[in-house]
């Protein structure tokens, strides 16, 4: 290195991986300083999708804010809806009927599968294998069909309400979900055969961008990113909410099977395995769901008591935290959304030192970030 610097003066290149780029999963701008192909510094620049959701939250009522949570992470819309509902119910002490909780868990887990499918598909498409993306979309279309039956929408559902869900499950919904699960079960081993253990794919991802467990915790990584670094922590297990205590499932952790623990391949495999676990959860939830009402009695003009609450839910991308301050009126006083992708971007600059430009794309994909969440 020293000899090269003395013999041939080289200059760093400043490249803008601009807001418009096919593989930055949204309007993310990364300012790259590279020495040839090796990245010296990669700084993310976010904020291109800032819509002032927190300020809007102070103007609308608690129920009116529900559609805004859809647009927070549009690939896991049910999860964001439910997180908001659970936070407000924790603040106001509302008791949700059990059937509604089971329905919420069912739709959240279905949405988790669909979100991980997109993460899997777009990640392999970024790596150059375009075909798995279309297979993932095909599976996801079936989930979208199920959701269309429930609430009429295929992307931003606005189905969960404060106190329950907006409508009961339609006829034969549970049978159709079971059919989908039976159809989906053999797909994951098929994807593993096709692409997950493909030598080229593994070589692209193994030992790239390793996040040690200590770094992962210190930098606030959560969800599959944290579990990919080997830390066995899942909110549905460690701080259970809703009906998760009644459901039995495993926590998927990265094991460094093809490289080091905490590299891109581990994070990817955690998502693949989580899809399997979600199928397990769904089967149990469908078996256990009781009859009953789907909406608690919530007053029309809803004024929760004065207080502050912090609630966090396990979203497909990590831990979505909602810090809610109420001053007794119909509008929230302060509403802070702790988005998992926002916090994940913090480690980006540190973890990309010394990688190649092609690896930047792998890192962005393996962290599974989504821009509306980052920018709110």
């Amino acid at each position: 290195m020293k000899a090269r610097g003395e013999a041939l003066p080289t200059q760093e290149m400043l490249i803008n991986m601009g807001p418009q780029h096919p593989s930055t999963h949204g309007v993310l701008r990364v300012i790259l300083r590279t020495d040839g192909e090796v990245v010296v510094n990669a700084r993310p620049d976010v904020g291109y999708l800032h819509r002032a959701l927190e300020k809007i939250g102070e103007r609308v009522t608690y129920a009116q804010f529900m559609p805004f949570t859809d647009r927070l992470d549009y690939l896991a819309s049910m999860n964001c809806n439910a997180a908001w509902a659970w936070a407000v119910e924790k603040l106001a002490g509302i008791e949700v009927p059990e059937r509604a909780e089971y329905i919420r868990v069912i739709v959240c887990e279905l949405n988790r599968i669909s979100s991980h499918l997109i993460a899997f598909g777009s990640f392999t498409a970024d790596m150059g294998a375009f075909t798995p993306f279309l297979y993932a979309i095909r599976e996801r279309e079936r989930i979208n069909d199920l959701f269309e039956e429930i609430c009429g929408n295929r992307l931003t559902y606005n189905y969960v309400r404060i106190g329950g869900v907006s409508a009961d499950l339609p006829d034969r919904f549970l049978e159709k979900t079971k059919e989908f699960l039976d159809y989906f079960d053999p797909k994951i081993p098929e994807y593993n055969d096709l692409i997950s253990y493909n030598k080229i794919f593994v070589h692209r991802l193994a030992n790239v961008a390793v996040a040690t467990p200590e770094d992962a915790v210190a930098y606030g990584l959560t969800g599959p990113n944290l579990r990919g670094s080997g830390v066995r922590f899942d909110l549905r297990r460690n701080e259970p909410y809703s009906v998760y205590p009644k459901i039995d499932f495993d926590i998927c952790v990265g094991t460094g099977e093809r490289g080091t623990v905490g590299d891109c391949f581990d994070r990817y495999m955690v998502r693949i395995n989580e899809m399997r676990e979600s199928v397990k959860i769904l089967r149990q939830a469908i078996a256990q769901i009781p009859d009953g009402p789907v909406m608690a009695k919530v007053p029309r003009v809803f004024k929760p008591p004065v207080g502050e609450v912090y609630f966090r839910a396990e979203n497909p991308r990590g831990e979505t935290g909602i810090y809610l301050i109420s001053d007794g009126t119909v509008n929230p006083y302060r509403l802070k959304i702790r988005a998992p992708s926002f916090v994940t971007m913090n480690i980006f600059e540190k973890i990309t030192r010394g990688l190649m430009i092609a690896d930047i794309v792998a890192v962005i994909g393996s962290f599974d970030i989504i821009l509306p969440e980052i920018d709110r």
Partner: protein
Amino acid sequence: MLESLAISLVDAVPVLSGVPLWTITLLIMVVVAAVVLTFALTYAGLATYVERKVAGDIQARIGPNRVGPVGILQFLADGIKLLLKEDIIPAKADRFLFVLAPYLVFIGSFAAFVVVPFGVGLIASDLNIGIYYVMAITSLVVVGVLVAGWASNNKWALLGGMRAAAQIVSYEIPVGMALLPAVLIAGSLSLQDIVRSQGGLFGIFGWNLFHNPFTFFSFFLYYVAALAETNRTPFDIPEAESELVAGYHVEYTGIRFAFFFLAEYGDMFVVSSLATACFLGGWHVPFLNAEALPAVWGNLFSLGVFLGKALGLVVVMMWVRWTLPRLRVDQLMRMSWKYLVPLTFFNLLGVSLWLLLFQGRGIPQMIASLFG
């Protein structure tokens, strides 16, 4: 050869006897070039259609099926669309080089069609340095790609151009060395000679593929190195859509972009036809002796067989593209220099030793001689 053709033409059509011979020769050359170019462009257009259909099949969907009977006129619609697009040249780009680059790439790719042995007598020009000529002229593509990357005044294009140049240049060595076994067996660089050397009574076993284990290996090495030469996945880093936003041709629009595109498909065909000619028996028709047939039938059958084999290899390239992810650029270079170069080198050594030990006979010949 063209001269004799010109003379026979003048004899047949007396009215041309007033015209000097060189004019007739020139006219014949122009006609032949036009025929080859037409074939090349039609093939390139149809190849885009086939690629999309193959992609659709692998991806569990239907490809184009609106324009024409099974969507077969899609490439015409695409061509017209590209012709009608606005021609944008970036403000600070180097205008002359920017305009020149697509032509260089196109020439480098399509000039190689001259030595492709389509049939018994169907070759535009049977140069006695056939293989050498192909290797040389396809290197023009490197110049074109570098010029495109530089002239676009765009850092992404520059990166893509540099990567492409590095990749193509590094893979030229394995390509050349993997083709040499066929040259050694035939004893000539001319492609028609190489094809003829695979003839004889052995049918499919006369192919160079089965001549000895080293040539068998050589075919696959050549195919992999050729995939890298033509910038196809898994080696399509220079134009990696999702990373470099289409790399060196990011600033090109309309018909200029079409040139790059067509050149890639042309390259694929050239590479596949070299593989066919050198390893898969070229235009030898199974169960028949194509050279002994009357000219029309011999040419027809051999053309059909050759196109079948070459286009089959092209479809395999498309199949590979839609199945595998892509290699990172340093992994790509490592593969060439650390694996392919030594392998093709030892392969070549092995073939030379074999030919020395067994006096140029291959395994089928030796088995046949056992039975008298």
